[in-house]
């Protein structure tokens, strides 16, 4: 990133730093014109179905696919951190149930962070050992939070299950079916990294101050919790669930288009073409919904997508990844309010990769502000 070499060029940019190139990255290539997403050179659609989330997380974080022995070490490290501090779980007893689920999850994370021995927080070497702990602790805390929302007792982790399978097991209380697991794993794989979006940028600013990786992830979570950033997959699913079928979807879409409605799950700041993550996940959604006897929901989605893209595609508005993940998480059995959580778990991998890339000699990120004289 900008730390790895001086960037002193003159640049032109707009409000919100739109168009400003903050620096160089070797983590992912997000091509919004051709609709391509590559992690460390690998197109995501080729990783889906072939690689586990553990492998992809390693690739994104450390730059290469792990060989068998590295993968074994990395997996063991992830398993080792599957027990977040008890105090973090207890913290939920002290916050009101009416609080926003992401605020509850945030509180658990901040309490968990109090249980990390202090010198580790500021040592550079230690940062490299942190991603496993953060990935596993957050999964355990999230599973606990989702069960807590539903009034269910926590489920202890199972060491013999992979990251995705164990998260579903701890969330749902039983091991997932093979097809549910494949679909869920695919959703984690395609959402593991997505360039320097606002949340990744927030994480980068925090890491630039010399703070620890967990603090950077918390800032990223903050950005993601905002209405402009995360949570669209929940809204999109709720929209689809309200429609009675494909015919209704078409009629409603045309009517909504006519009054200029903004469809959650459609349109993207970067992609002005079909989102490559959508194409990768659609086959999983179709198969999963069919096997659960919910083919109608699938056709409702297709009908809505066709109408919206038919009308707005020329303006660069297409279904984005948030349009499809709900159609995986619903048949898997996650409650609707928990839909944003898997995205949080996956994308923090990318934030940490950006932080680690920035760390070696990155300068504190402190831009300027122009004072507008009221006189």
């Amino acid at each position: 990133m900008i730390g790895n070499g001086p960037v002193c060029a003159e640049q032109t940019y707009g409000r919100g730093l739109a168009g400003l190139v903050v620096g160089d990255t070797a983590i992912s290539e997000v091509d919004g014109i051709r609709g391509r997403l590559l992690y460390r050179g690998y197109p995501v659609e080729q990783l889906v179905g072939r690689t586990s989330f553990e492998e992809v997380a390693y690739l994104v974080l450390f730059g290469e696919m792990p060989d068998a022995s590295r993968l074994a070490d990395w997996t063991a490290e992830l398993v080792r951190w599957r027990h977040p501090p008890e105090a973090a779980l207890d913290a939920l007893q002290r916050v009101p149930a009416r609080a926003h689920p992401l605020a509850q999850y945030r509180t658990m994370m901040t309490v968990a962070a109090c249980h990390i021995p202090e010198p580790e927080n500021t040592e550079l070497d230690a940062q490299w050992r942190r991603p496993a702990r953060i990935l596993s602790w957050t999964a355990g805390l999230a599973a606990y939070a989702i069960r807590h929302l539903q009034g269910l007792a926590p489920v202890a982790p199972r060491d013999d299950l992979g990251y995705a399978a164990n998260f579903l097991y701890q969330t749902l209380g039983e091991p997932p079916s093979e097809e549910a697991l494949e679909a869920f794993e695919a959703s984690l794989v395609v959402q593991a990294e997505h360039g320097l979006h606002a949340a990744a940028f927030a994480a980068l600013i925090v890491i630039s101050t010399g703070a620890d990786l967990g603090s950077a992830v918390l800032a990223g979570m903050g950005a993601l919790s905002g209405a402009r950033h995360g949570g669209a997959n929940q809204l999109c699913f709720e929209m689809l669930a309200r429609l009675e079928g494909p015919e209704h979807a078409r009629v409603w879409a045309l009517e909504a288009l006519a009054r200029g409605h903004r469809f959650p799950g459609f349109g993207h700041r970067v992609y002005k073409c079909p989102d490559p993550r959508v194409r990768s996940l659609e086959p999983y959604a179709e198969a999963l919904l069919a096997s659960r006897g919910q083919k109608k929901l699938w056709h409702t989605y297709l009908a809505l997508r066709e109408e919206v893209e038919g009308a707005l595609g020329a303006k660069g508005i297409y279904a984005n990844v948030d349009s499809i993940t709900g159609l995986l998480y619903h048949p898997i059995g996650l409650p609707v309010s928990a839909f944003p959580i898997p995205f949080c778990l996956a994308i923090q991998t990318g934030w940490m990769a950006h932080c680690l890339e920035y760390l070696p000699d990155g300068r504190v990120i402190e831009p300027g502000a122009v004072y507008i004289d009221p006189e």
Partner: protein
Amino acid sequence: MSKLQTLSGAFDWRAEAIDWPVTTDVGPGLAGVVAAETRVMWLDPSSGELAYRGVPIDALASSPDFEATAHLLITGRGPEEDPGGLANFRHQVRSSRLLPPDVVDLVRSLDPATHPTRILRAGVSALGCHELSVDDDLSGSRQWRELRIVGQVASLVGEICRHRNGLGSRAPEEGCSLSEGVLAALNDRRPEPDEIRALDLLWVLYAAHGLDAPTFTSMVVASCLADPYYNIVAGLSALRGPKTGGASESVLDQLLPLDNPGAAEAWVRKAIDSGETIAGFGHRAYHMPDPRVVILRKEVAAMARSRGRSELFEIARTVESAVTRELAPKGVFINVNFYGALLFHLLGAEPPLAPCLIAVGRMAGMAALVSEALDNIRLYRPLSRYVGVGDRTP
């Protein structure tokens, strides 16, 4: 479109309006980049001027009143201009110090030796769960404007001080100022007038300083329309960083073990020779010594003398001169944390408490800058350039 500056040339960071997009030089760490327009504060890197809402920092520091300064920063109105508003504001801030018992319990359930900024972050997070429900408009700037946050953070910091010192929970005395409340919690006794003045001064000077990393983090998070407590959790995450507010702790860790000016001189020489970072020196904002340093140095001298700690001031003075002699020619100048941290120490704070105490003052500036930004903000979404490997297949 306007061209704003070149890194080498002088540039006026003051304008009537900005005509976006702009063209500027972009330095490491986004130096030189214009990330916001603000009416809240003004700092001039070349003249060393610093003003809140047009009021020079020297004027605010001459009879420091943190609550009045917070009111000025957030509303833009001075005490003479709006005495009624200020009185209301004081009442509101002070009465928001009563924390929900669950939040106090959460703080007290944590190991007292935990770094105070981490406990503060957990406390703020839990408080947010009590203040806002899932049905609220979480993105609103109401909580910032009502300024409950400033009082709440002050109260949490007081609780954390007491917990750290093995004292039971006690809410601040009703009606006392924020600085009186925190000092009473820190030292478990009624504070002296010069202590109250010193803490007010520290908070006034630390209240706002442009888009430093904690404030900018908070603005980026706010631009996604996250709730204010998430903004603070994110801002506090950055504030603890050893390269920002966390440096205040390092200043004390480095200075307190030095026994006399001679030892100080020797330590500086050794530190510079071995390339060690000397906390309290170096900053991006000014091409000269930080204007707040002069004010704080005087205050530290007076406080040290009256507390029989003149030796500590002498040691600090020695370190300052020795480091300045070596590093000023390279453009590295003393910053606010050097004497700021010493003053916190003279008020009774252990080194790890310093960043937490800074946070209270900083809440005022964050509230002002973030709520201002919320009015016309656009999602912060810069770009990166891909320079990695080309296509490959698994």
